[in-house]
């Protein structure tokens, strides 16, 4: 439940709904119960998605970037610009169709967790350019 994704919630709700509609031809009560359950699951899922969406945030400070995320597990990362190795902008098919992109910072540590999804593509490009500029100004060796 903790890491339930939007897709799984949606699929579960739809499955319940389909079974509910099917059953309503033979057993009206059970069908109705299932349909109510499906709507509840969908509602909960949507509210969880909403909270997940609102949990994402980032803040450009003078020397480092702050990235916040997570509903159940709240996380806050601080990545100094000087530690950036690469900045990556990606856009999957879904993101592309919505005009969105994801900016991800890589440091020399695989554990660093600085991913900012769902930015406007132009905003993502601007952010990348700003980050790269700050990284160059403060670059440090390992």
């Amino acid at each position, binding site marked *: 439940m903790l890491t339930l994704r939007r897709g799984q919630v949606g699929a579960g709700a739809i499955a319940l709904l389909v079974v509910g509609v099917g059953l309503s031809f033979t057993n009206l009560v059970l069908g109705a119960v299932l349909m109510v359950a499906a709507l509840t699951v969908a509602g909960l899922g949507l509210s969880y998605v909403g909270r997940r969406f609102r949990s994402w945030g980032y803040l450009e400070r003078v020397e480092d970037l702050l990235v916040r995320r997570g509903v159940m597990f709240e996380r806050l*990362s601080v990545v100094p610009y000087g530690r950036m190795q690469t900045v990556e902008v990606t856009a999957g098919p879904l993101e592309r169709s919505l005009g969105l992109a994801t900016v991800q910072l890589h440091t020399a540590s695989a554990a660093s967790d600085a991913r900012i999804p769902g930015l406007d593509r132009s905003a993502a490009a601007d952010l990348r350019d700003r980050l790269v500029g700050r990284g160059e100004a403060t670059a*440090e060796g390992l």
Partner: protein
Amino acid sequence: MVQAGRRLVPLAVVLAVPFLSRGSSGRYQSLVDAGLVGLAVVVGAAEWIVTRWRVQAGVLRLETGLLRRRTTQLPLSRVQSIDLVRPGTARVLGLAEIRVRSGGSREGDVRLAYLAAERAEHLRDGLLNLVRGTGPAPSGAESHLARVSTGRLLACTPLRGAILWPTLAALAVLVWGRQLSLGGGGVAVATTILVVVGTGVARIVSSQFGFEVAHTRDGLLIRGGAVGTFTETLALHRVQALRMVEPLLWRPFGWAKLVADVAGGQRRGDEDRAASGRIRTLVPVAPRAEVLRVAESIVGPAARAAGTPPPSRARLKAPISYPLLRAGLPGDYAMSAVGRFRRLTTIVPLSKVQSVRWVQGPVQRRLGLATVHLDAAGGRRTGAALRDRSSDEARELLQRLPGLCAAARQSAPDVLAPVP
């Protein structure tokens, strides 16, 4: 100083010796053997003829390849370490290989294989001097730190979890297999497990045999090996994190292992396997006091910092690991101890911290706890984890640490601790 040469001993000789020494049976077998040896000699000779290396204007250059010419250029300023490796066969023939490691991927490494052992040692010292940019090191500037005795090595190896539990399981099957009517399959599986485990023990013992650590002006000098031997130099400023591991079954004897995470070059987040190759064992097994002495030579007094335990309410969230949890910020370092059964103590220089992460799970939120991670260059688990601190302390750490790390980066000298 310009070092140049083609005086590498053909690899073919090293490759061919095992074939020659193998007893062959039957006429065809010996013909095949002769053919293989001949092929190896031809390929090796060709390789030898087309391989040249030189050091010029601060760049080590290696040209090789008969059909596909390949030139590797490694600026000496980017050299991370220069190791001397002597596999078993090469050792019999009095040869050695020099491995010059760069910060980046394995492909960036330059291997000079094989040189006469004495010449290899000279060349290694010469290269080290070039890298350091000074004259030769004064002789005798080597202070002994730790040594792994054969007895302890043999005693501790079976006490590793990965060795002990499979062995016990296999023995149990062999002893009680008949009563449990497991049949021949059980015995076969048990025997296979025993053989595999035995090979593992032999490999561990032979690679860590005669392991020795000393402090020199170039950093830590690590020597060891039973059949093949190696000599490695680890510059102290390359250490990203130090880890002291105390497995459950070693703790009654007060033994510990010391491992250093060593900088690789640029690495993407998903390349954990490359990261795991960038780990150096500094002490395979030694009494805690000796391990602490080695750690002290790298990070100074921070090695002995005990840290403070998390608030007692953390017991509810981490009942098993609570007694081992410690964290602290001794000087310019961060230390953390974690573990349920085996204790893992990590020390990270603040100047090497890549990013700071604050994490709070649902149980932690209830209890007013949070975990602060200090990520060092390397894999997902490289770095210190200040687990289950009180929310207030975690918030304060999160506010102070970025500034402390920045200050440490600016003031960090090339070498972290002076030669004692």
